[in-house]
């Protein structure tokens, strides 16, 4: 987060891409689009284009890594070399390793890990194009891929960022807002339980701004949750149509 003089909110209170402060970017979600994966989902959120796939539950190698009372959840968040302005080396960066960890920890609370002892589930996220708040869109897609794979879950996990740009708390940061704004607060949420499973922040916020940002992000999560469920239903309906 580095502050520059550029105006991120215009006189009408609109953002660089014409959105109001509490407005989400256009979102498109598809479930079950990869034929090899046990479950998969694709999300477009603004210019973000992200694929998530799930393999498992399956046997774990080497075997001494398996847990006797629960499954092991593994997660890889990875960006395609062409997903960002400057070509990214395909080797995992420190940022990708950290995000793989926090995404895994955002998803895990939703899974009944004790149902499948001694097994592993792999969640693979590929960012094909990055446009800010990719970790949130990745979580939204990954939890759909898990549901698509038939993994028993307490709830879908949905994620959305909020942040502060030009003294305004705004929803769902896009790339420039993320880089030039004064704070970024990604939040993952389980709507049924009303709990937060991912929370990070960088920038500078007062206690009040911090609370507002989280509350706004949760509102965003709830809207995206509706889209998640629609996408699942669409998959289910289309599958039924095919079967009939």
């Amino acid at each position, binding site marked *: 987060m580095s502050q520059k003089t550029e105006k991120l909110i215009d006189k009408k209170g609109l953002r660089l891409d014409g959105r109001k402060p509490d407005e989400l970017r256009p979102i498109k979600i598809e479930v079950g689009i*990869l*034929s*090899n*994966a046990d479950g*998969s989902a694709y999300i477009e959120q603004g*210019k973000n*284009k992200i*694929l*998530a*796939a799930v*393999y498992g539950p*399956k046997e774990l190698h080497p075997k001494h890594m398996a847990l006797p009372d629960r499954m092991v959840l593994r997660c*890889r968040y*990875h960006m*395609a*070399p*062409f*997903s*960002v*302005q*400057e*070509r990214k080396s*395909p*080797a995992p960066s420190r940022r990708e390793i950290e995000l793989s960890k926090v995404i895994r920890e955002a998803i895990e609370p939703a899974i009944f890990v004790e149902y499948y002892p001694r097994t592993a589930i*792999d969640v*693979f996220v*590929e960012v*094909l*194009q*990055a*446009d800010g708040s990719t970790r949130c869109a990745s979580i939204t897609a990954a939890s759909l891929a898990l549901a698509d794979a038939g993994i028993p879950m307490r709830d879908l996990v949905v994620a959305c960022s909020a942040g502060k740009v030009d003294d305004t708390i705004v929803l769902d940061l896009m790339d420039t807002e993320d880089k030039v704004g004064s704070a970024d607060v990604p939040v993952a949420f389980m709507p049924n339980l009303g709990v937060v499973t991912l929370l990070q922040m960088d920038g500078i916020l007062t206690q009040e701004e911090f609370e507002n940002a989280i509350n706004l992000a949760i509102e965003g999560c709830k809207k995206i949750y509706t889209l998640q469920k629609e996408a699942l239903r669409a998959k289910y309906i289309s599958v039924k149509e095919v079967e009939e």
Partner: protein
Amino acid sequence: MSTIVVRVKQKQIAQLIDKGKRLDGRGLNDYREIKIEQGIIEKAEGSARVLLGKTEVMAGVKIETGEPFPDTPNEGVLTVNAELVPLASPTFEPGPPDENSIELARVVDRGIRESKAIDTEKLCIEPGKKVFVVFVDVYVLNHDGNLIDASALAALAALLNTKMTNYEIEDGEVKFKPGYTELPVRKHPIAVTFAKINDKLVVDPWLDEEQIMDARITITVDDDGNICAVQKGGSGYFTPKQIFDAAQIAREKADELRKKLGW
């Protein structure tokens, strides 16, 4: 699928091929349906997504400045990389490129390079010092067989879609200007892969066919019907006649595909 079901299916595939037929209804020399979408990654200089049946491959092109190779000081540099990302198949593992992804990248690279598809001399900024480096990243998203042909199509489609920002040289530095120029692509190399099953050759094998093939051979053909790259793979063999016939068919198929795709 259980192992028994798999075996039965494999036997069926082989028996049908013996009779000149394929389980999915194709003729021995037929490609699966090909869908190509270009320009899907706005942040890349060029991009394309190819569906070859259920095999799905993306390619993105990024252009940076760098140094030329010492033996070609007036030419830009082409770098092809391929990632078998683990969401594409239960057999792909995360980690550094293995022999399969390296072979894939090098076969795609050879087709583009040997056919002189890109006019690399137009990518020279300052001879011996600064040239454009064209990175082609092939990204396999779903593996249902014949990754080579799908990747070669995706790479070429992405290159054909590539726009380079205009620039001028100011005090030895590259300054970008408004406007775009297309990447100078002058040839359209097409890779045609055959699987050998029960001593018969079939074009564009899908995954089930690959699992029972003895060997494969890829023949890449340029716009003039010349052969510009060949790669045999797998632990089987071919008779010389099979190879010569394959080359002949590859030249026909390449021509056919080029027409169909308008290249």
